[in-house]
Each structure stands twice: as structure tokens, then as C-alpha cells.
């Protein structure tokens, strides 16, 4: 791969057979399939009839595309771009303006029911969806036109899957994921902020080879990637089971690689294969690097996963001008309140008893007199 035909590689130039084989073996491993299927995958991937793909960008940071293209493993991006025929991608295509919109229209018309629609970014719905417009049309408009005409939809990233960060309270633009708008269409959610490119690759290869999406969980996420908790595959798990926890960042436990549960790791409630797949071809992932999981692949990411350094969310108490209290405070209030009420109740009871016995004895004295 020489430097001067770099662009050619990105927009679907040649990839060596070796890269193909490596990529397909990687996809098979990610999918949890036996190596026997690799030849079949290579055959499907090498087929000249590449599936047309329309890639839509809405409310997002382009982080999903960026992480795919600028990963330390450019062959994955090249491979993906070589497996598919990317007819429309705002970040990558050479066309602009009117011509670009023309491309989109043509791609849909030519390939109705055959193309794969990839959506990146959330879709604002408030006020008629005016908070995200492309070429004068709202995201809502575009997605309701394009997605139903596709063969299937891949929602890449947490924003497209569940609304993501712009759907955090108070969600000023009414952002939602694709599945909340497009009904009756096969939607594969590949959430993550950003998702692991290998999961996207494996999904695409699976679709190419078998013509159907991988098995999905009840949130529409492929089970091969999102079927297990991070916590259940974490290299720090033995420390969790043995009760060895990082108390604060930089303490001796942190240096020894203890479990990050007490500094807010969301691994116990987050579904992803990060701990197995790892990132960037260097075997790195957040928990391995010493920071807890922030739960970015889950619906309600942000609202339910904040604060980052507490393992349970803070809850909103409407008293006192809207203080954001930690969940722990509730406990103190409950137990403290109960203890105070019991003490007061018992004190009144005893006081009454003493009072009436004093009164009683003085009455007796009166009687004796």
C-alpha cells in the first residue's frame, strides 16, 4: 500500500487477498463461528456484486466514522469499504451540494429494497425535527424516506440506536434512535460511543455471507457482541470476587490493578465485548487502562450512567430548589428518620407513663389524706 494511492484504498481500491483472509478470519472469530466458514465468507466478500450502502449522518460527532477510518488498523476500514459499495457518505464522498443529494436520490431509486442503510447519529423530533437539517430537509424526513426502502438498517453508535448524549435530560431537541421512528424494518443496533469497528465489520460480513442479520437481543443488538456483561469477561473480575477494590484513583490498589467497582465502573450492567475484542490493535480497552466502564452501549446512556465515578445514578429530589442528591443520601435519611421517629415515639410514651404515674401517686396521696 503506497502512500500516493491512499485515497484509492479508502474509497474501495484493491485490498490484498491476504488482508481479505485476515479480515474474514477476524469477523468469523468475532461472530463466534468456526474457521470452517472463512472460505465461504471470503467467497461472499470477494463477489463483484457488492451491496450498495447509504450512510446517513444526523445529530452526531462523526466519532463512529472517525473511529472506523482512523483506527490503528486501517485495513479494517479499507476492508469494510471494499466489501460494500458506498453510494452516499457525507464525510467520505467527493460529491457535494446538489450533486450529493442527487446521488442519494439515485441510490435509493436504483436499489430499493436492496441497499443497506447505515444511520449514524440521533434524530431530533421536537418542533417538527427542525434541529437537524441536511440539504434543507429534516433528519426525520430523510430517515422516514430512506430507511423503509432499505433491505435493512444498521444503527451505528449509541446516538442512532438509543438517542445518545443529545437525548440526555432535558433532551431539548427530542432526540431519539432510529428504532423509535422506523417501524416494520429490520434494524440492527451497534451501540457504543464509539462502537468497536470489528463488531461493525463482523455484522457486515455476516450479512454478506448469509444474507440475514446476526441474532439480536431484545434491544436489537447483535448477540455475538452484546450478549454478555463486560463484568463477566473482565480481567479485574478476580479482584471483584476477592473484595479488592480501588478506593481512589492512583492509590496502591489502582497500581496493582484492583477492581474499579467502587470508583464507579458500570461493567456489571453494561453489555459489550470490549474486554474480549479490545481496541486499536494494541489490546487496550478502558478498564484495562485503569478507568471504569462508563456504560456507553446501554439505552439511557448518560442519564442512567451518570455520575461516572459512582456505580449508581444520582437521583433528583424536588425539595430544596432541586438538589441533585446521591442515592446514598436516601439511605441516611431513611435510617436516620426512622431512628429519630422511634426515639421520639418512645420518649413520648415513657414521658406519658411517668406523668400519669406521678399524677396517679399524687392522687393516691390525696386519697390517703
Amino acid at each position, binding site marked *: 500500500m503506497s502512500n500516493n494511492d491512499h485515497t484509492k484504498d479508502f474509497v474501495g481500491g484493491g485490498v490484498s487477498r491476504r488482508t481479505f483472509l485476515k479480515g474474514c478470519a477476524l469477523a468469523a472469530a468475532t461472530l463466534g463461528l468456526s474457521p470452517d466458514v472463512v472460505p465461504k465468507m471470503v467467497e461472499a466478500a470477494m463477489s463483484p456484486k457488492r451491496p450498495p450502502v447509504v450512510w446517513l449522518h444526523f445529530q452526531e460527532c462523526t466519532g463512529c466514522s472517525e473511529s472506523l477510518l482512523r483506527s490503528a488498523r486501517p485495513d479494517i476500514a479499507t476492508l469494510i469499504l471494499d466489501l460494500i459499495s458506498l453510494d452516499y457518505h457525507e464525510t467520505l464522498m467527493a460529491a457535494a451540494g446538489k450533486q450529493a443529494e442527487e446521488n442519494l436520490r439515485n441510490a435509493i431509486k436504483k436499489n430499493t429494497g436492496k441497499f443497506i442503510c447505515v444511520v449514524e447519529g440521533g434524530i431530533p423530533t421536537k418542533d417538527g425535527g427542525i434541529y437537524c437539517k441536511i440539504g434543507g430537509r429534516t433528519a426525520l424526513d430523510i430517515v422516514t424516506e430512506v430507511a423503509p426502502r432499505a433491505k435493512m438498517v444498521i444503527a451505528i453508535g449509541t446516538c442512532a440506536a438509543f438517542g445518545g448524549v443529545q437525548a440526555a435530560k432535558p433532551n431539548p431537541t427530542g432526540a431519539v434512535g432510529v428504532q423509535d421512528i422506523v417501524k416494520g424494518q429490520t434494524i440492527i443496533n451497534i451501540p457504543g460511543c464509539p462502537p468497536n469497528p470489528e463488531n461493525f465489520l463482523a455484522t457486515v460480513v455476516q450479512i454478506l455471507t448469509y444474507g440475514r442479520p446476526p441474532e439480536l437481543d431484545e434491544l436489537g443488538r447483535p448477540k455475538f457482541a452484546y450478549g454478555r456483561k463486560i463484568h463477566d469477561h473482565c480481567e479485574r473480575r478476580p479482584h471483584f470476587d*476477592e*473484595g479488592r*477494590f480501588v478506593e481512589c484513583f492512583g492509590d496502591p490498589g489502582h497500581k496493582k490493578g484492583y477492581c474499579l467497582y467502587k470508583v464507579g465502573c458500570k461493567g456489571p450492567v453494561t453489555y459489550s465485548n470490549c474486554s474480549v475484542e479490545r481496541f486499536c490493535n494494541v489490546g487496550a480497552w478502558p478498564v484495562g487502562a485503569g478507568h471504569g466502564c462508563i456504560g456507553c452501549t*446501554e439505552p439511557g446512556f448518560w442519564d*442512567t*450512567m451518570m455520575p461516572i465515578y459512582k456505580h449508581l445514578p444520582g437521583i433528583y429530589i424536588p425539595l430544596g430548589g432541586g438538589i441533585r442528591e446521591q*442515592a446514598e443520601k*436516601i439511605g441516611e435519611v431513611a435510617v436516620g*428518620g426512622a431512628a429519630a421517629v422511634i426515639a421520639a415515639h418512645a420518649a413520648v410514651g415513657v414521658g406519658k407513663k411517668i406523668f400519669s404515674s406521678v399524677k396517679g401517686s399524687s392522687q393516691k396521696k390525696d386519697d390517703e389524706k
Partner: protein
Amino acid sequence: MIRKEPRLYYRVFVWSGTLRLFHWTLAFSTFILVLTGIYIHYPPITTKWAEFKPQYIMATLRYWHFCAGYFFICALLVRFYLFFAGNQYERPTDFLPINKRNLQSLVHNIKFYLYLTDEHECRMGHTILAGTIYFILFICGVIMGLTGLYLLYPETPMVARMGHDLFGTPQQARLIHYLLNWFFIFFIMVHLYIAIWNDFKAPDAIISGAFSGSKMMPADLECPIEELEKIPFEK
């Protein structure tokens, strides 16, 4: 009201063996659940000695939590069965404020606990105040059981679907599970206090009743309990 002592009491059989079995299973399992749950929520620093000897403290306490959780769920199932198949006093119609008589009784209970009256209402079953709170506790227990099962088996499709429809993500379920934990702690404290307080104030001996199943009823009281065993008892 000045009580005349000695007074003639009947020992009246109220709580069936099944109900008492439920009560003590629930009590012990809740006790263990609360203690192990708090450890799971905030494991205190044991790191200093955890380095030297393998001890699996979190794994063990979680295991106890799940075992106790199963006892807890079984106890709730038994109570649910008794809502329909239990004796007269074990059915919700007897202790929920759903008719005028029970509502009046509820008002009276509240007055009694606020020291506004000394007159203790000798009731065969639960008082209405207690019954209502037990019913709320039962509902909370069901929520605890469901969120607990959801946290325990989030990968089982049926459980995952149930949890998703009822509580949302496992993280939301975990928050509910944790917050209700404090309701149980609150309940344990108040329940123990009220039981002891009642033993001082009222003659019906509810603490021993939790073991023996019988309550003491003043003989001069009109008791609509012809069908039940009455054992005269001189105090």
C-alpha cells in the same frame, strides 16, 4: 380507660402454621439480604488482608444474597397463596381499608399510635394500619424479587424481556433494587419497635403470637369467633 386486672383472657388461634413459616422465612431471608446487599453496594475496605489470603468475600456474600433471595421469593409465593387460601385473618379483605368498618379502625389505629387514645382495639387479625403496611411491603418484596431476578439472569431471554418492560435497563433496575433496600431497613426498624411497644401497651401478646400462632383476647369483649378454638386462660 382503666383496665381491670386480672382479667379473663381467651387464647385464640389466629395464625396458621403456614403463615408463621412464611413470617420467619421472610424475616431471616430479609435480614441476610439487607446485610449482604449493603456489602455488595458498598464493600468496605478489606484490601489490607485481602492481599494475603484468598477469601472470595464478594463472591461468597453475593452467593448468600442469591440463596437468601430464593428463600425470600418462596416466602412471598407462600404469602400470595395465603391471600386466597389462608384463613379469615390472612386474607387481604380482613386487613385492608376497603370498607367503612376497616377505615374507622384505621383512624383509630393511627390515634392509638399517636398517643391520642389509650383504648386498644383488640382485633383478631392484623390491625388495619399494620395490614396496609404489610401489603405495601409485599408489593415492594415482589419488586425486589423481580429486579433481583433481572439482575441475576439478565441474559435469559424471558427474564430480560420482563425486566426490560417493567424496569428498563439493568442499571435502572439496580437503582430501584437499591432504593427499596432502604424501605426494608426502615421497615425492620419500625416493625421491631412497634412489636415491642405493643407488648408493653396491649394485652394481646403479639410477639409470642408470632411463634405460637395465638393471640390473647379479653373475655369481656364481644368476639365474633364462634368457629375458632377458644381456650380460657387465667392471667
